[in-house]
């Protein structure tokens, strides 16, 4: 169920009034959990098996940890929980990648050996059992004249698995570290793992922020509703009017990079740079808006990242919930910056590579992570010099970071490593032909960027002028009502 569909609108219109009615009663968590499972099951009801399983394991692990004071047993239960989460992710995301890479290596070594392909990456037996069940139920649905069929499993990665496993994992780790208290109520814990506004693409909430909000509902003021609505409309505009528009240009060029000249490849890369921002931050805005209307404060996930003046700054503005997750649960446990410069850079490197792999099981993502690690080290060194700090104009720094990030996105977006290298080489060598980027798209992006520059400047108060804000929202609503077509595109980050 995508936020920008009528299906979700009806779902929310059904869920919200009941939620308002029961939010001060014991039914609050069960109602939220039911709504969240309906929301998630709308993709495929069989996915629910996985999320319930992941929830049960982590809930049980913390229950067991809470019942012992011995560090060994607590550590063992933490290990069980983390291993289970990592195994789930590995099974669904990385099995194919590991086996494929291994076979490439064996072939390159001329061994003539190969590891059997895992095929579809569902756990053994789950695929056949799930599909048999789906087919059985589909027969009944057809007989009832219901125009819906449960999709076959095994074709796609379960939506949002990377997000909810990380969210759940943070709970067990934080409990182990004593930073969060045990949640004894299973329904409430399951709601924390699956809360529908942020279930499939974040923000990846921490237990210490979200669980207290689930335990003790904060009052919903009228301002929460209007704020939530404001966030939602901005997010919807980002997704439908901007991200989907840019996607149609980017998909054309990146689908066949060999056919395009350097300007088109450069502009498509810049267009993707904005597409992924609008797509993901648009989703987050909508998620936070829905959460706010329901009385939840979900964390800020994007803070105008393309105005960053260094890569460290960029990562404190881009997908904040994930970068802080990696900081708290990977970088700092590795030693962070406490063990000297060389070790700091090794830790940084490892964290960024793992972050790349989190996004997808392919060498392009690994390379993307490596590039960011190297860029992060380079800008850290630059930032240590007084010349860079004091003499280089702010705008130059911002443009430098933006162009580096855009360059790295080539590896993120390209369909294969060969494609990515082809794009890089063609940008440098191919002829200059008409890029055919619609002026309208370019104008829209330029306007947003200009808005962001003003927002972070001394004249920000201009943007607070009420008639301007009202006019912008009216313009967005009119644009959304009239201009875009009927075909909505899924969110990019759902595939992660």
């Amino acid at each position, binding site marked *: 169920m995508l936020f920008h569909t009528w299906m979700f609108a009806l779902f929310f219109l059904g869920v919200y009034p009941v939620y308002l009615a029961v939010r001060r009663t014991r039914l609050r968590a069960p109602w939220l959990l039911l709504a969240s499972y309906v929301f998630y099951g709308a993709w495929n009801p069989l996915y629910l098996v996985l999320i319930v399983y992941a929830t049960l394991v982590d809930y049980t692990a913390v229950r067991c940890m809470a019942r012992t004071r011995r560090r060994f047993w607590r550590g063992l239960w933490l290990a069980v929980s983390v291993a289970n989460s990592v195994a789930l992710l590995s099974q669904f995301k990385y099995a194919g990648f590991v086996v494929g890479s291994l076979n490439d290596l064996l072939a390159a070594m001329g061994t003539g050996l190969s590891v059997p392909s895992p095929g579809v990456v569902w756990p053994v037996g789950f695929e056949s059992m799930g599909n048999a069940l789906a087919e059985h139920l589909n027969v009944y649905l057809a007989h009832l004249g219901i125009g819906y069929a449960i999709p076959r499993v095994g074709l796609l990665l379960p939506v949002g698995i990377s997000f909810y496993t990380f969210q759940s994992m943070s709970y067990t780790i934080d409990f182990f570290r*004593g930073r969060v208290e045990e949640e004894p109520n299973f329904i409430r814990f399951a709601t924390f793992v699956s809360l529908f506004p942020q279930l499939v693409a974040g923000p990846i909430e921490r237990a210490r922020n979200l669980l207290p909000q689930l335990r003790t509902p904060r009052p919903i003021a009228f301002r929460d509703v209007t704020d939530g609505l404001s966030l939602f409309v901005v997010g919807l505009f980002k997704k439908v009017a901007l991200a989907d528009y840019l996607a149609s240009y980017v998909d054309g060029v990146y689908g066949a990079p060999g056919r395009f000249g350097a300007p088109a490849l450069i502009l498509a890369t810049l267009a993707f740079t904005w597409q992924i921002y609008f797509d993901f931050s648009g989703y987050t805005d909508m998620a936070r808006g829905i959460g706010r209307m329901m009385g939840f404060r979900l964390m800020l996930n994007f803070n105008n990242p393309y105005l960053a003046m260094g890569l460290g700054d960029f990562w404190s503005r881009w997908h904040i919930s994930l970068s802080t997750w990696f900081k708290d649960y990977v970088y700092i446990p590795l030693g962070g910056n406490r063990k000297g410069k060389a070790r700091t850079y090794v830790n940084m490197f490892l964290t960024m590579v793992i972050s790349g792999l989190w996004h997808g099981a392919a060498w392009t993502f690994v390379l993307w992570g490596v590039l960011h690690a190297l860029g992060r080290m380079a800008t850290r060194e630059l930032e240590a010099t007084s010349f860079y700090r004091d003499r280089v104009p702010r705008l130059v720094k911002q443009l430098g970071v933006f162009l580096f990030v855009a360059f790295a996105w080539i590896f993120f977006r390209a369909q294969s490593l060969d494609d990515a290298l082809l794009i890089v080489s063609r940008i440098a060598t191919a002829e200059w032909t008409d890029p055919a980027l619609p002026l309208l798209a370019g104008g829209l992006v330029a306007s947003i960027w200009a808005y962001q520059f003003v927002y972070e400047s001394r004249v920000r108060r201009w*943007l607070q002028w009420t008639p301007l804000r009202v006019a912008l*929202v009216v313009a967005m609503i009119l644009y959304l009502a009239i201009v875009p077509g*009927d075909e909505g595109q899924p969110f990019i980050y759902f595939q992660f």
Partner: protein
Amino acid sequence: MTTKNDRQIPPPGRDAEVAYGSNDIRLSGRQWLVVAAVAGVVLAALPTAWERIERIAPADDYRVPYPLSEDYWLFDRLCRRARRRGQVLVLGDSVVWGHYVTNDRTLPAALNARLGRQRFANLGVDGIHPAALTGLIEHYGRGADGAKVLLHANLLWMSSDRHDLRTRKAFAFNHPQLVPQFSPAIPCYRETVTNRLAIAIRRRSALHAWASHLRRAYFDGRDLPAWSLDHPYANPLGQIALVIPAGRAAAAPTDQAVAWTRRGIRPLNAPWVPLDLSFQWARFRRAVEVLRERGCELFVVVGPFNEPMLTGESLAAYRRLTGAAAAWLRARGVPCTVPRALPSEYYADASHPLADGYATLAERLLAEESFARFADVGPTEGAMP
């Protein structure tokens, strides 16, 4: 008992303020009211204002241009225009629209030609079928309320399970946005629940119909972003010519506008779906009911069909079908006629007459007393000049 965990727990998150966002677009309740009022007025007024600005190319025997067959907003507008002019609205599929003939050779044009005045308005839609036509009337046909309507029943749509949309095997048929999305279920229609829901909601929105009209009339049927990819430097506003052309040309290539026997089409052994089982007939009946509920004065023409094209057994079944259809209509007090089959060489295929066929059919219809009475045609009108 205080545990290690309890001691280190930070204060509850309810009081911890989280940053609102990364922009200043944050409206209060009053400001949202202003937004709702301004956007609501603009969006509600736009389609009506547009109708005053945008012209329809003046043409006798106007019909919806073929590329605008899915422009349902235009259909509604043409219905209203015809009703205002006191015309009889002729509703139906490509047989009414005139798939093989130019706009001045269709059935409504032939009727007008014999009367010497624009009495009949061609509101046929090429490519439509009864299930979709019913949806078109239900959702976009309020302009026809209270008008005189000549409804054509093309029984071709009951000639096989596939035509009747009864087959379980999925296939793409025309105008899926107009058919029932949930109930009654159409077994060959496969669409996600999300999309079905979106269709069901959108077709209740005049604004959506109007926005779709803009796309079809000026942007090659595509939304503005998609269109701009092919015209990256063009000014979209310059595309809007504010004139809807007339659909003069036939939809079929001219070399197909000849008798079916010359096109190498083989005789048809249609299995025919019995009326009581037919989905398309059920939807046609629904169209009749809707039109009557809306105060329309109705006359139904059943067929004619290219009967010589049918094999013996199939022809007998067809005749039983037309008889049953006419009986159903008469039992409900709906005036109807089952015209005699036209000469076979007047057909381009099983159901589409050629220009001579339409002329003959018009002559025969006008000769019928019940039809003349329905159409307010005087005793001398319609006679051969």
